[in-house]
């Protein structure tokens, strides 16, 4: 049961705090305009909106890939808008996992090498990183492709690898930018089920950008709608009717 909280209580516990964030590019209207929001640990937030509404910009700002023109961005208690490039990279690999629409796997590395990469960059010993990556790949159902190159995999499999890579450093926050946007329907469902289970079973905090409202509603615990760079609505999603307890899990099959 959700108990109403004060803004201060949110800010204290929140994994993500955006306070009056504006991002203006060279010309035209701001991509984000005075956006404020908080995300609590364990929340699964879907950010919805039409093309150009500022969804990806918001995600980039939270990930520290971009900097706001005005306002503050706090993630896991740190002002990411104030971090330098190197600090931002270190922070990202420790606290944030990123999943992209087009996977952004490195074609020259194997699935296992792709997955272990953030851990290796963080200085983890090769053996430990590879072991952790292999465990994750096995859990996400693509362990048998560990030695293959990403180009050999289907879209859904590639996105599973991308999720495994995002989780390898056990981040506080998983950011997914249209993770199903480049997938066929079945693969898309598969990936969404994976994200839902990560949230429900692992308590992983997730912010997912998508433009598919009905799908977002079925997997997220909270929906934020952006229109022209502003938050048009921010509502919780009521829990769906419990599924058949005897049915097998879709993600960790």
């Amino acid at each position, binding site marked *: 049961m959700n108990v109403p909280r004060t803004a201060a209580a949110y800010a204290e516990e929140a994994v993500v705090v955006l306070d009056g964030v504006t991002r203006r590019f060279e010309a035209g209207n701001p991509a984000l305009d005075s956006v404020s929001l908080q995300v609590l640990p364990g929340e699964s937030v879907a950010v919805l909106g039409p093309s150009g509404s500022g969804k990806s910009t918001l995600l*980039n700002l939270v*990930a520290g*890939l*971009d900097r706001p023109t005005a306002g503050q961005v706090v993630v896991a208690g740190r002002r990411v808008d104030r971090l330098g*490039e*190197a600090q931002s*990279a*270190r922070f*990202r*690999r*420790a606290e944030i996992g*990123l999943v*992209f629409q087009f996977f*952004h*796997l*490195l*074609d*020259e590395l*194997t699935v296992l*090498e792709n997955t272990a*990469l*953030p851990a*290796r*960059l*963080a*200085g983890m010993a*090769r053996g430990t990183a590879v072991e952790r990556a292999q465990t994750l790949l096995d859990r996400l159902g693509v362990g048998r492709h560990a030695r293959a*190159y*990403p*180009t050999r995999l289907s879209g859904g499999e590639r996105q599973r690898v991308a999720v495994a*890579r995002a989780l390898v*450093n056990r981040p506080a926050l998983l950011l997914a930018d249209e993770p199903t946007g480049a997938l066929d329907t079945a693969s898309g469902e598969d990936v969404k089920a994976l994200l839902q289970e990560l949230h429900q079973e692992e308590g992983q905090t997730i912010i997912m950008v998508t433009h598919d409202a009905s799908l977002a509603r079925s997997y997220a615990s909270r929906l934020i709608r952006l229109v022209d760079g502003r938050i048009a609505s921010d509502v919780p999603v009521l829990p769906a009717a419990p599924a058949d307890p005897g049915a097998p899990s879709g993600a960790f099959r």
Partner: protein
Amino acid sequence: MSPLGQVVRAGISRRRIAAVVTCLSAMVATAAAVAATALMIVSSQPFEHAFASQQGADLTASFDGAKATPALISATAHASGVSSSAGPFAQITLDGQAQWQGAEFGLPVLNVVGRPDPGGPVDDVTVIAGHWVTGPGQIVLSTNQADGLSPGATVQFSDAPGDPTLTVVGIAQSVTNTADAWVTPTEATALQPTGSSPEYQMLYRFTQAGTDAQILAGQAVVTGMLPPGSLVGSTDYLAAQLQASGSTGPFVPFIVAFGVLGLATAMLIIINVVSGAVGSALHKIGVLKALGGTPAQVVRAYAMIALLPSAIGVVLGVVLGNVIASPMLHNAEIAYNTGSLNVTGWTDVAVPAAALAVVALCAVVPALRAGRMPANAALAVGRAPRPGRGRFARRFLAGLPIPQQVGLGLGTPLTRPARFLSIALALAFGAMTLTFAIGLVSSLNGVNTGIHQAQQLGDVNVLLNAPAGSVSSGGGQVHIKIGPSTSPVTPAGAAAVESAVTQQSGTAGYIGESQQQIGVLGKASSVQALLYQGAATSPYQIISGHWYTGPGQVLVPTRFLQSTGTSVGDSITLVNSAGTHVSVTIVGEVLLLQDSGMDVIADAPTFPGTEPTRLFVSLKPGTDEASYVQSLGNGLDPLGAAAFGNPQRGTNQTILAMDSLAFVLTLLVVGVAGLGVFNTVMLEVRDRTRELGIYKAVGMTPRQTVAMVMSAVVALGIVAGAVGVPAGMALHDYVIPIMGHAAGTNLPAADVQVFNLVEEILLVLAGAALAVLAASAPAGWAARLRTATALRTE
């Protein structure tokens, strides 16, 4: 503008940095090629080229003015077989003493000619520095005599009436060595020593002058028109040619080696830059084809994108090439002792034409490949390298216990083998050139030291039979009048001088030297014997064998062995002027080029009764040379001897010219290689922008990004160094002895084997350092890439 033109314009303007780098690389590569070609051309028969351009004299004749009037001599210009002539010019032979920057130099006897201007139908003298004489009190020295002297120096002629001092206003060069110095005709008359008969110089070119006989025939016709005995001396161009080939020969292999390296590097860089520019446009080519561009249109558009900036670079490169070739050719002028050398016209046409042809080929071949490729394939290939290339090697690298970013960087060259191979080769050429240049300079300096060290023995020299007028002086200045000694040194005289030197406070020791003309029975009628007293170790660099251990053993230069058909270990019989026969054994071969290499070095007692004519005195540490010379000089003056500080006239001009040529050529080749690395890394960063974005998105720090980019080129630089350094050493070891042979000598091992292990390692690392230097800017760009922007890159 046509759609094609739009694509080309957009392709260039959207990638300004790439276009500028392409243009810059083509420019530097072409400049290097122009300079290298120009140098190689002038290195081919430099004497013949200079002879043709200066209208060198086939015959230089000197006539006695007392027997033949200038009018009569002038008339010989119309002799049968004479195609052109110059003169008669008044000519005097004078004993000169030069002064330059506070130091005085004794000059050999100078042949001074009065000429109103340097030009003319024969012997069109080239003024290398300063200007031609314009009035009285001025003199122009020939390059042969100007070693170490520049305009502004003065020359005093004590033989001439009034002891005049003339100011050197220019340095000039005559390919056929018609004079040692030039003055105005009026000055020449004024310099004529009182009571001597005037002499005139006449310069001839004949219709037939290919052989000695033809020149002699021409000379006979000329002299036949004059009273008997008028001709007092003559030289022909064949002698000058022979002399020139001996002195310029050493330069040819070294300049050709540099030229070939420069050309090869330039070619590699052009191939790398242009094909890289087209190759990275493959994805856009796919887009253009998908939009309906025909293969021909695509080929034209993308070939033009590479061709336009390259063509501009090539044209600018010709200009730059001429600019940088100018000082290099000036050094070659000094080295070859030829007149003004220029980049030939056809070089300025042929080199850019060849460069453009290479550029066109490099642009068209990948463009044709792209043209043939189906649109979807071109789109799929994109700019990123094909996955899976060098898979096993990269997996091996990834497994090494090294940071991930370094492992990733090391694997990069394997994904684009062609691009990185050309860069590795360019770096290898750079390392090879650097190694060769360093070795060359070490060898040249070693040889230069070796050649001169015997003359620069000790701290103070004592002449036992100093010519009248000599003054003892210290501080590196020489006040020794050059000329025949007044009288032979007697045993008593020598003993007195040696005693004075021994008793002088500050003397650590001395070596005595005596020179005399001797014969080698059945081998040579006249060679110079250099007889040493008290020389326990060799003042010369020994090529083979050992220093003498007592009388009856001699050392000789290479040319002596070649001329007499002897070798180390052979016995020969020497005959001195008194007719004494001494049988000696050749125990060593030394580096010595004076006296045409016809010397015999021996212990003085080999010829009993030999007294030293010169002492090389070593001083005790802390002894003031100037006061020592002054004090010793006071004691020596009554004995007819003089002391002076060891003359140090600095490094030979030709060695300096070679050193600076080596420096400039190395800089050029290394610069071109560096530019190639810069271009490659820039292309890599641009082509891998999205990939770099991914790395950064998953947490790669800027420093790790730099490490990744750098480790690729550092590895390449080390590999290139590991290949280039031994290759440069091999080239050095091959070329240096050839240069020595061209100069008529073998070389001591110490001057050939100049590299040591530390140097070799440093040189290998220099390849990596060059790569790091060249890659630092693009690696910095990679580190500063904005992640979000990079991820959006197609």
